[in-house]
């Protein structure tokens, strides 16, 4: 465990030693701020209309009408941000030769993978932390429920974890960062839009909805933690990490 954390810590540090962490967090903060203002403006206009037509502003629910659409936009941002976090995790170690240090240390391939996963997850959590600052404003001026917010963030972490595990796997396959980014992005976009096909072919709709990473997020943003979704995300992550470890091992055999 100690060496897993050592790797996680090293990963996190190296993100902040390169421009990647700053670019990812900066771009996210900007776009998130933009979304926040846009959604807030829409919300304010709506509640003013509601006020004019008799119903009090109270009937507008901050959680349902503001936070939920906001977080849905956040998931789209994540689709762009996370491939940038994972794109060079393994390729960089290969390029610099430090992979020889990792693979000849008394730890298993899986421990290395988990360490790298936790490091990327930590950067992702820092990035999400930025979005909490905006939400804090809502608590100052209003009284949103915090419970759905909490579950939504748990959902975001799990959802992002899936991306990271796929991104890690893909970074073991290619040395090219652009290819790595695009492939991770592509795989995720596919898992995202897979429901569009599903809804036109009824026989596979159930399966396809199950596979779609984003559909499982919905309940989290409503304030519900359903174990089925948690299990889906955790198995997705485990599978991705397993593939990553396998890929590292098969590269050993090929030399």
């Amino acid at each position, binding site marked *: 465990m100690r060496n897993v954390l050592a*790797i996680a810590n*090293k990963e996190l540090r190296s993100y902040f030693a390169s421009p990647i962490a700053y670019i990812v967090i900066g771009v996210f903060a900007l776009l998130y701020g933009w979304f926040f203002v846009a959604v807030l403006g829409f919300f304010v206009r709506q509640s003013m209309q509601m006020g004019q037509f008799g119903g009090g502003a109270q009937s507008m629910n901050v959680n349902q009408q503001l936070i939920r659409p906001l977080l849905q936009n956040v998931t789209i941002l994540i689709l762009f941000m996370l491939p940038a976090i994972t794109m060079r995790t393994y390729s960089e170690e290969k390029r*610099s*030769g430090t992979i*020889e*240090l990792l693979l000849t240390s008394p*730890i298993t391939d899986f421990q290395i993978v988990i360490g790298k996963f936790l490091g990327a997850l930590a950067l992702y959590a820092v990035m999400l932390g930025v979005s909490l600052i905006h939400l804090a404003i809502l608590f100052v001026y209003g009284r949103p429920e915090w419970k759905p917010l909490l579950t939504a963030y748990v959902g975001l972490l799990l959802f992002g974890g899936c991306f990271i595990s796929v991104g890690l796997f893909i970074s073991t396959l290619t040395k090219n960062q652009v290819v790595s980014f695009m492939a991770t992005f592509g795989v995720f976009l596919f898992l995202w839009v897979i429901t569009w096909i599903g809804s036109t072919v009824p026989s596979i709709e159930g399966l396809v909805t199950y596979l779609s990473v984003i559909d499982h997020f919905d309940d989290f943003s409503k304030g519900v933690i359903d174990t089925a979704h948690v299990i889906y995300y955790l198995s997705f992550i485990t599978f991705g990490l397993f593939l990553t470890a396998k890929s590292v091992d098969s590269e050993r055999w090929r030399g």
Partner: protein
Amino acid sequence: MIEVQHLTKRYGRVTAVEDVDFKVERGEILGFLGPNGAGKTTTMRILTGFMPATEGKAIVAGFDVFDQPIEAKRRTGYLPETPPLYPDMTVVEYLDFVGKLKGLLPADRRQRVRAVMDRTRITDMADRLCSKLSKGYRQRVGLAQAIIHNPDVLILDEPTAGLDPKQIIETRELIKELSGDHTIILSTHILPEVSQTCDRVVIINKGRVVAVDTPENLTARLRGSETMYLQVDAAHADAPAVLGRLPGVTRVTESDRRDGLVGYEVESEKGHDVRRDLARAVVTSGWGLLELRPMRMSLEEIFLSLTTDETPTATEDGAPNA
């Protein structure tokens, strides 16, 4: 301490290492000598558990590197061809990280980091970023990380490659110091390196071990003799004896025999051209002389392809053609 048996490694259809066998005793420094592409790095990567062998086995510090990799790795320190440094860490941070990877506990780790920096003389560079180190210091930090967990076995891949002459001497001194506590394998393609540092040498070429001996014996074997190849028709039982009596000839061995033709390898003292005497002896004995040519021992061929001078610029040479 290290035992390698029938080790073979193939990359697809390329055989990098074939049927390599050797042993290293505790406290020994073994030199792994061979031209570029000989299979040194490949063998070391198998010993350190970086990659598995295609066939054969390797036992390091009593543990099979394939069956018990974690145990074997705990007892092995490895300096790859390029020191595996993280550019964005300072030397202290880096060594501390490696200490964690190797499973050292916090209190012990701090003390070990200080000890290895002291030992490899990099304490002055403690707070310098790894990316800002000179080649010589990078190599020393590489050595420091290899010994941080006080391993039984040290595996050093071309530890002096690319260093200037002063740094080479310092690194050799350091390696000799370390040999007190560790069993060491080091690879090199520089001939004088082994005679300066190693107790025993394994010469490897094209993936095969061609000789294992002490540096002194190997040099003697090379300096001492020249070999002729001689082919005559029909086998004559007394031929070796007849040829062996000629002045200057030290040894005669039959090398091949086919279609009634027999080939001999005739070793003679260096500087003593025995060709005329050989030809005369064959003719006067009434045998048919079919071929007589100087023959280079494979060992010598390999030595010729090794770099013999120590200037760092001359370290890149191709594999020899047989």
